[in-house]
């Protein structure tokens, strides 16, 4: 035991002080839309997308795309396929949002289009981010896994000495009875729907729900199958969405910070439309 303690002391502090830094070069994050115009009639991104997250449409003869990060499994194929550089790799780990429609990116800045997106995007308006101030100092989270375990492992990693999410006041607890937040991973197929609802029902108010990972948001690659693995949308109201397959531990921490109303510790990079111009 003394050997172990002395080893741990020798190792020093491993924790990263820089909160939610960008991903290293060459590491795939989610895609983003740059301000380079899309070429009309091109469907390269739509053709390679495994989850139909991208659609193309036309406004006055110019080509536009719509990209739903809630369906995206960050395979990066669209980034590789895009001939103009309209879709690029987003190195940011600050990707969590509190409204489902904010996950839908588009090249069109026309209000009509955005309204349509907002209307199609979803249901259950979070009653809630006002609730966030309840959990500003600490949040006890119950995790319900209904998926393939990658998101669970990344959540576990977020608790390791490098990311150390406990320093932000986040505790993973073993019972819904003393949980403030319900973190859901996986596409919630038929088998787990009842169990998930009971778990939510056992939580005291005020309570929030965090959908962790693309499967939890929309079902991801499993969407539309016979097992009704279509994500959380028709089951529970959601307060924070963390897209990714799986999201990076920093993205998970970012999502929890958003849920706690502590987003200022790691603000989302401004603007999606006027970000970087990629030379190709």
């Amino acid at each position, binding site marked *: *035991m003394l*050997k*172990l*303690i002395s*080893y*741990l002391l020798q*190792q020093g502090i*491993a924790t990263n002080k820089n909160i939610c830094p960008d991903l*290293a070069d*060459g*590491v*795939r994050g989610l895609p983003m839309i740059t301000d380079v115009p899309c070429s009309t009639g091109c469907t390269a991104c739509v053709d390679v997308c*495994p*989850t139909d997250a991208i659609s193309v449409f036309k406004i006055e003869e110019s080509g536009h795309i719509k990209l739903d990060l809630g369906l995206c*499994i*960050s*395979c*990066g*194929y669209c980034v590789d396929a895009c001939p103009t550089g309209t879709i690029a790799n987003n190195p940011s780990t600050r990707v969590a949002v509190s409204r489902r429609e904010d996950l839908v990116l588009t090249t069109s800045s026309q209000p009509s289009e955005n309204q349509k997106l907002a209307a199609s995007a979803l249901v259950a308006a979070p009653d809630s981010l006002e609730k966030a101030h309840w959990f500003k100092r600490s949040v006890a989270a119950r*995790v*319900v*896994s*209904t*998926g*393939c*375990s*990658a998101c*669970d*492992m*990344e*959540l*576990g*990693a977020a608790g*390791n*000495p*490098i990311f150390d999410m406990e320093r932000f006041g986040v505790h*993973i607890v*073993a*019972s819904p009875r003393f949980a403030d937040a319900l973190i859901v991973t*996986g*596409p919630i*197929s*038929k*088998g*787990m*729907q*009842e*169990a998930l609802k009971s*778990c939510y029902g056992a939580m005291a108010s005020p309570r929030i729900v965090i959908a962790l990972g693309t*499967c939890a948001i929309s079902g*991801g*690659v*499993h969407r539309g*199958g*016979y*097992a009704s*693995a279509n994500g959380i949308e028709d089951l529970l109201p959601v307060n924070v969405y963390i897209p990714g*397959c*799986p999201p*990076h531990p920093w993205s998970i921490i970012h999502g929890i910070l958003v849920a706690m109303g502590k987003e200022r510790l790691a603000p989302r990079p401004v603007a999606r439309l006027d970000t970087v111009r990629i030379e190709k």
Partner: protein
Amino acid sequence: MKLERLEMPLDELHDKLARTLTKNSNKRLGLFTSIDGGQLVTLLLDPKDGTAELLISPLELERNKYRSLTPHLAQFHWFERALFDFFGIVPDGHPRFKHLLLHEEYEADFFPLRKIALPENFENVLPRRYEFLEVKGEGVYELPVGPIHAGVIEPGHFRFSCFGETIVNLEIRLGWVHRGVEKRLTEVPWQKAHFVAEAAASDTACANAFAHAIAIESILGVTVSERAQYLRSIALELERLAMHIIDVGGIGTDIGLLGISSAMGRLRGKALGLADLISGSRFLRGFISPGGVRPVSERNLSEIKAGVISLRKDLAPVIQILSENQMATERMKDIGKLSRSLAHEFGMVGILARACGIEYDSRLSFKQGKFPELAPSIVTELGGDILARTRVRIGEIATTLDTIEKLVDGCPHGEEKMVLPEKLPANATGLGIVEAFRGELIHLIFTDEAGNISRYSIKDPSFQNWTAISIAIRENLIADFPLCNKSMALSYSGNDL
């Protein structure tokens, strides 16, 4: 790999299997399923010769049942239950015939993979309601755990029957994360199917994509470039490395040596960083696809080699402290013991089979990337207990580090990805076998007359191994269960699909 396809009448199948799957035989059962509900498909593997044999036994459609194989060959017990769940084929005389993966939420006559109509006189003998095996007797009580567990892990239900602190029986009920992966794999265009195959169990994403790629390539009859084969093997070993590190760390958590688990958690981060270098993804997602791999730069390869060398140095003191810690050794010794004969009888694979002396590692038997040419030697132990499993894992961390180094050194220049034809050939069969970090993983694909995938079957190593926990934990204390469970580290999603 050569896959021999044989028609085998149903009444000969019993004899053939009874003769083949004996104690001293070299052959083992790969998987057992059906294509569309009109036949039984048995995959037999011969690890010694590296060959496989596929037995197709047509069923009489009006009867829709056959004599169960389980009473004589125990390893068929879950295969036959899954066969009924998916196809509605009844194994007559199965000693514990009940549903395996589909729960009460599904309608009684719902058989998702069945393509031919059910016989008119079909009577569903099995209600959806699930009954656990009941242990009767004064002082025996039941302890239900799950499906939602206390920690951050996948869902499953454990029903313990205990007498005092001692576990008399453990029944495991899975299927909570059944997502319909096998069906989905037949619905998407085959060029995009590797994303679904990866999601079968994402902690095994690389091995699943690898097995998928081998199966598709064997249908097309193509061989990928030498460089792609090296890179695939490196990726597979990186996945094994990262998962073995965290699984050894998990043993530390459950013993109470939190210093070990936090150190291992940190070092796993380094291994995941190496996965990032080769694939741009910590879980190696999207790296392997039919036809090859994503491009990797020489600089990243040399960084991986440097990373492996430094990781070996970093791991040594932590592993030494764990191995020398007497408290840890005594906690693991003689707990959760699995006998070699039962492991053999139930066809168990991977770490837990090697920990009771079964020398089977599919890397040494079946072609997968640069294996068996560059495969490391098998690590085995004889104890069959938690200590033996941990030792095998520690031994494999060392051989894996060496193997990655060897592979990086040997990796030639060349193309990473080849162009594949648009269509798969009609009526073909493809087989991919990969040694995932949990053990032998099998993907078996059938195409129809139009060259579309008509049946996609996955056999995760956990499918055979779940029974091992029930066997190993019997007569142990209830408090030993978490540690025993962790030492097996099985997959729920890979089993449930």
